[in-house]
């Protein structure tokens, strides 16, 4: 009589899982596209300061990263505690910057080269001396678009 009793006895039909792989693949492709694999492991401690006037860095391929900070515990004995520059995955000096920029430049299409940005990921506790040297070197290498990496301010 009741609607519910009718159903009793009937085997519950199994939900078709045939489309499950497709759904998973869709998700997979999404994550594959948005993923940027870290290409360099940090050898310096970088804790960027907070700021409010931030601009987003577009097009990752047009950005080169310069890390400045004090060597992490692992490298302290070898490299000391004074601030160091890291280019790619190794320690570098200011003199290595022009070559580093050039190496990045040749990978970028010619019509986009004017939009190359250098992202300075600098630890908040580093003194300005090394930052200034690097800025001067960037100016000498005619790499004038610079982005001081910072975290959004949480109030």
């Amino acid at each position, binding site marked *: 009589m009741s609607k519910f009793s009718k159903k009793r006895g009937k085997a519950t039909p199994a939900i078709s899982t045939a489309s499950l*792989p497709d759904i998973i693949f869709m998700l997979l492709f999404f994550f594959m596209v948005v993923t940027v694999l870290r290409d360099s492991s940090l050898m310096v401690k970088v804790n*960027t300061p907070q*700021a409010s006037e931030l601009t987003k*860095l577009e097009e990752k391929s047009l950005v080169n990263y310069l890390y400045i900070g004090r060597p992490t515990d692992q490298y302290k004995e070898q490299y000391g505690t004074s601030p160091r520059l890291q280019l790619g995955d190794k320690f570098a000096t200011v003199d290595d910057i022009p070559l580093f920029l050039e190496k990045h430049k040749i990978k970028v299409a010619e019509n986009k080269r004017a939009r190359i940005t250098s992202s300075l990921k600098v630890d908040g506790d580093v003194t300005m001396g090394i930052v200034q040297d690097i800025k001067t070197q960037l100016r000498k290498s005619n790499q004038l678009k610079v*982005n001081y990496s910072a975290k959004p301010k949480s109030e």
Partner: protein
Amino acid sequence: MAKKSSKDRLTNEINAGSMADIAFLLLIFFLVTTTIVQDKGITVKLPPWSEEEVDATKLKTRNVFSVLVNAQNQLLVRDEPANIEELKDRAKEFIMNPRGQEDLAEKPTKAIISLKNDRGTEYKTYLAVYNELKAAYNELWDEEAQRKYGTEYSDNMPTEQKRAIKGKIPFVLSEAEPTAFGDEK
């Protein structure tokens, strides 16, 4: 015999049941390695390199808003100690000079902000100061955009509107060669 069995195999289908598992495995891998966090920061255009120093002495003092940061991270704004909290409002007042004061900028186009730090200044102080000065300009641009076009200032505004605003209130920040009193050894 062998022929027959291969014929049988043709009719067999590859079992796609484990496909989902494989896809899941890959999915989890990419989920873990993905960093969605956007890279953000303060974008700066450095001046081209030139050997000779810019001579600031021929500028009128009323048009220069000098900000000095020493190795103890203390601020000296227009020759008097200041706090970082008041920097933005003072910069805004200096640029616009709403009451036409004698000692503030003649007009926004003539205003120059001069920033000088020491080699011993902490980077976070430097960036905080830079952030405040940039915020002052951003707010002024915003006010200008509201007054003129009734919208807030953003990067996706029409280029000519942006140019008009920036032509009226240009962002001029000159950074002097830092002093080296507190340099790290």
